[in-house]
């Protein structure tokens, strides 16, 4: 990379030339890597809009041309996924709100109040972030299926509700599972933010005799709005994208309560192989909610990842 700058003479012309060559090579690299990161996604999107013939006959990177263009795959994929979109959002939004709120509360309790043994509690939260979920899968399945079959308990309620169907009850255990396992990461994200806050506000409020609850509601909640944005976006993306819990708790990709990630690996598959036009359309549609959030809130997403580390 650093091809130059060993020459110590003061030849201005060669310095400028060196510098700009160096600069150009940097930009070439930047653009090459943009290609590296975007090409797989681009081929996917292009393929989604191609007829089967165009898929077989044109280069995947090329956009579909007049005759090769079709919306049929998109329509088919949308029909296959539309119910799943509702299921995913119905499950992911309350689960996100729950884990973010609990995370904020726990972080507040752990940073704003000074007591012994905090470090131990913190370590338990941290291990919860890194836990390989395989270590709890068998218990999870047993718990929700045999020990505490919450889904079948709340099913009558769901039948009675408008819009919802009885089978949506099966999403409730998944929701609670996501809340519980989402708490550690949300707590740590909020904790790093609360630690950076000036303590003077809280101290002043304490001296004025404000209660813990009042400090949380009147001071901490208002000033942590930006962090709520970060954690909410991060956590929603995680839960929407998640697969393993859904796979464990929902019986199959052909059930009406299946979420998007569960159905996707089966869309467009037949005995003769995968229909990539349909599969790529479905992948594109499935990615759309997170893509929109990502493009709109890229900074918050990067922030969440950074604090994560």
């Amino acid at each position, binding site marked *: *990379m*650093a091809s130059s*700058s060993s020459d110590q003479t003061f030849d201005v012309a060669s310095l400028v030339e060196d510098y700009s060559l160096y600069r150009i090579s*940097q930009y070439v690299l*930047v653009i090459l890597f*943009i290609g*590296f*990161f*975007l090409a*797989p*996604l681009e*081929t996917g999107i292009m393929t989604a809009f191609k007829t089967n013939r165009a*898929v*077989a006959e044109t280069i*995947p990177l090329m956009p579909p041309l007049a005759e090769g263009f079709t919306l049929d795959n998109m329509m088919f994929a949308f029909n296959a996924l539309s119910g799943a979109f509702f299921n995913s959002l119905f499950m992911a939004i309350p689960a996100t709100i729950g884990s973010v709120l609990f995370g904020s*509360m*726990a972080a507040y*309790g752990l940073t704003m*109040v*000074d007591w012994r043994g905090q*470090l131990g509690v913190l*370590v*338990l*939260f*941290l*291990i*919860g972030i890194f*836990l*390989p979920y*395989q*270590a*709890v*899968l*068998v*218990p*999870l*399945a*047993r718990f929700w299926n045999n020990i505490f079959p919450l889904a079948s308990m709340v099913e009558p309620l769901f039948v009675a509700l408008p819009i919802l169907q009885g089978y949506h009850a099966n999403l409730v255990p998944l929701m609670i599972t996501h809340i*519980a*396992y989402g708490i550690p990461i949300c707590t740590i994200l909020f904790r790093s933010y609360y630690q950076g806050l000036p303590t003077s506000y809280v101290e002043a409020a304490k001296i004025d005799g404000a209660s*813990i*609850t009042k400090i949380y509601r009147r001071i901490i909640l208002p000033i942590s709005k930006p962090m709520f944005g970060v954690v909410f976006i991060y956590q929603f993306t995680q839960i929407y*994208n998640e*697969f*393993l819990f859904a*796979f464990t708790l929902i019986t199959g990709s052909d059930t009406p309560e299946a979420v998007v*990630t569960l159905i*996707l*690996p089966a869309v467009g598959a037949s005995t003769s192989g*995968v229909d*990539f036009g349909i599969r790529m359309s479905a*992948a594109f549609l499935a990615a759309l909610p*997170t893509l929109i*959030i*990502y493009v709109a809130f*890229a900074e918050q*997403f*990067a922030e969440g*990842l950074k604090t994560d*580390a």
Partner: protein
Amino acid sequence: MGTTDTTESTKPRTEEVGWETKVRYFLNSDLVRSSPYWGIPFLLMGIAVYGGIGFNTAISLTDARGLGAPDYSLSNLDFEMYTQVLGSSAFLSAAQNNLVLLVVFTTVCLLLGLFLAILLDQGIRYNNTVQTIYLLPMALSFVITAQVWLWMYNYDFGVMNIITRAIGIGPVDWIGNPSIALGSVIFALIWQFSGYTMVVYLAGLRSLPDDQFEAAHVDGASTLKTYIRIIIPQMKEASVSAAVVLMVFALKAFTFLYALTGRYRPPNGTDILATLMVRQAFKLGKWAYSAAIATYLLILALGVIAPYLYYQYRQGSL
């Protein structure tokens, strides 16, 4: 535990010297009154995480399989499953694949991420937009990226084989050939994760004061030398935390492999501990056996996390 007390008490208490009695009053009442705040989430998380681990361990000591409930009677509990797992060739080859995945994936992600971070730290125009693009794959589900790479690796029409044909190597069976499949999977995962390591390193680079770089330049050090001698050694903390996240991911990676085939069995040659465990449990119903595999996985993950937490604790950054 003597040091614990000093690290905890230095920060907030310094402002309140002389208020001994009032401080103590506050501490006591705060602890009690704040308990609903951290207590409820802690309880929920504790049941899910530690209750789950305990339950898993209990099941792993039984012989549970199939439909019947596990028999927890004392005479039935033993470590038989653990020895059985260690003796099986499927476990050993999965562990071997997992080790390759962990080492290669983590190393390349760190190197590529560092390279990209340094590249973007050179005052590139629109560097925020570029960063957003590099990080984009990280926002997508593994289920989605697996589909995209399945198409990239497609034998007849995939982009990768268009490239290999153009170079003259001829088509490669990226996913079907057991000796290449793991490499293909690692490549795709590096594509997805190197944006993440880049963001971690960029945060590290931007926290460094600019004058170090200028001083090195005045001394006549080249850009490359400055990075190798001065900047990169200061990236130790960023490297460690990124490496931990990547290694733990490599241990629990399941979704990407499952989504490639849509079946319990991932492509030949890419079976790792996580996929083996899920297959034994939910396809074959060998609950105790798979719970034992899960315990091994947990121990491996703790082997990565524990030194990290200790390191963080020693640095005073917990």
